């Protein structure tokens, strides 16, 4: 108990830069959502919207169409969580362009994002299939219970490591190339003095690397995460059909 009454406990809270940037992105998106909400309440429905509201309307329309297309009927209300996850994912992958630390380089951020999807999938599964949810653990025969319990965690692990590995690989490659280019430039232009000799090659090569590893890879990873979130309930749908067929019999 003594630990919790210590007044210095908040001073020992010392998050890394990745966590701070992640929280800042989340805060920015929350503020944007509040602004869009106020704008949407004040807007005149008879006039065409413009500016930020138009962008928000476009995003909602697209994601609703995507959800209806991929997940089918009965899952329309999933557009909301996708609209919450997509901007955060895309911003946290692409924030590396500005030189700030990418939140995905800290394992805690992709793990928590994957945990959101994991819990969502299982909660939806319980909600739609009720007690038949537990049937998946003894799927062919009850002996498979330990194996099914183990394989339940595989999607969580693969989703986490996919995002973390992609961001980390890009970051390591970019910093490796930058370091080597710096030393090449420093040895070629050594007559200029130690301050300015190492800056000549990096700005030429870095934009290409950032465009591929941050923008393109971030876009693809966001797409894949959204698809995986949206695609999972497909086997759920089969279960639901199975349940309803059994009830009809």
């Amino acid at each position, binding site marked *: 108990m003594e630990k919790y009454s210590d007044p210095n406990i908040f001073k020992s809270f010392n998050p890394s830069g990745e966590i701070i940037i992640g929280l800042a992105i989340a805060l920015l998106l929350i503020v944007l959502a509040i602004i869009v909400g106020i704008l949407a309440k004040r807007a005149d429905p008879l006039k065409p919207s413009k500016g930020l509201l138009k962008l928000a309307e476009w995003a909602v329309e697209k994601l609703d169409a995507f959800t209806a297309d991929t997940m089918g009927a009965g899952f329309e209300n999933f557009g909301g969580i996708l609209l919450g996850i997509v901007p955060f994912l895309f911003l946290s992958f692409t924030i590396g362009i500005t030189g700030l630390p990418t939140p995905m380089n800290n394992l805690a951020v992709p793990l928590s994002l994957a945990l959101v999807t994991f819990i969502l999938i299982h909660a939806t599964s319980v909600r739609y299939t009720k007690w038949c949810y537990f049937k998946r653990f003894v799927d062919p025969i009850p002996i498979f219970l330990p194996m099914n319990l183990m394989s339940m965690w595989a999607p969580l692990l*693969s989703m986490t*490591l*996919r995002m*973390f*590995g*992609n961001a*980390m*690989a890009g970051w*390591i490659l970019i910093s490796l190339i930058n370091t080597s280019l710096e030393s090449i430039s420093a040895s070629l232009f050594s007559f200029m003095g130690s301050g300015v000799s190492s800056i000549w090659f990096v700005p030429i090569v870095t934009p290409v690397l950032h465009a591929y590893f941050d923008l393109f890879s971030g876009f*693809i*990873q966001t*797409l*894949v995460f959204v*698809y*995986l979130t949206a*695609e999972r309930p497909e086997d759920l749908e089969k279960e639901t059909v199975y349940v309803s067929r059994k009830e009809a019999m």
Partner: protein
Amino acid sequence: MTDIGLKAIGAGLAIISAGASSIGEGNLVAKAIEGMARNPEMYGKLRSSMIIGCALVETCGIYSLLISILILFVL
């Protein structure tokens, strides 16, 4: 032979599986484009499932990359 040299050999061996993963990815894209050429009206659906498949296949390569990073920097 020093410890660092052995670590480098281990990391190099771990990244070999990325080659297998990229062969699989190449097969996937080749087949997808074949399907697109035969059936151009399915272009959109084939492209999106191709991207998902690529990402799923790529995961194996990323695992090997993570293992080699762990060998180099953590071990």
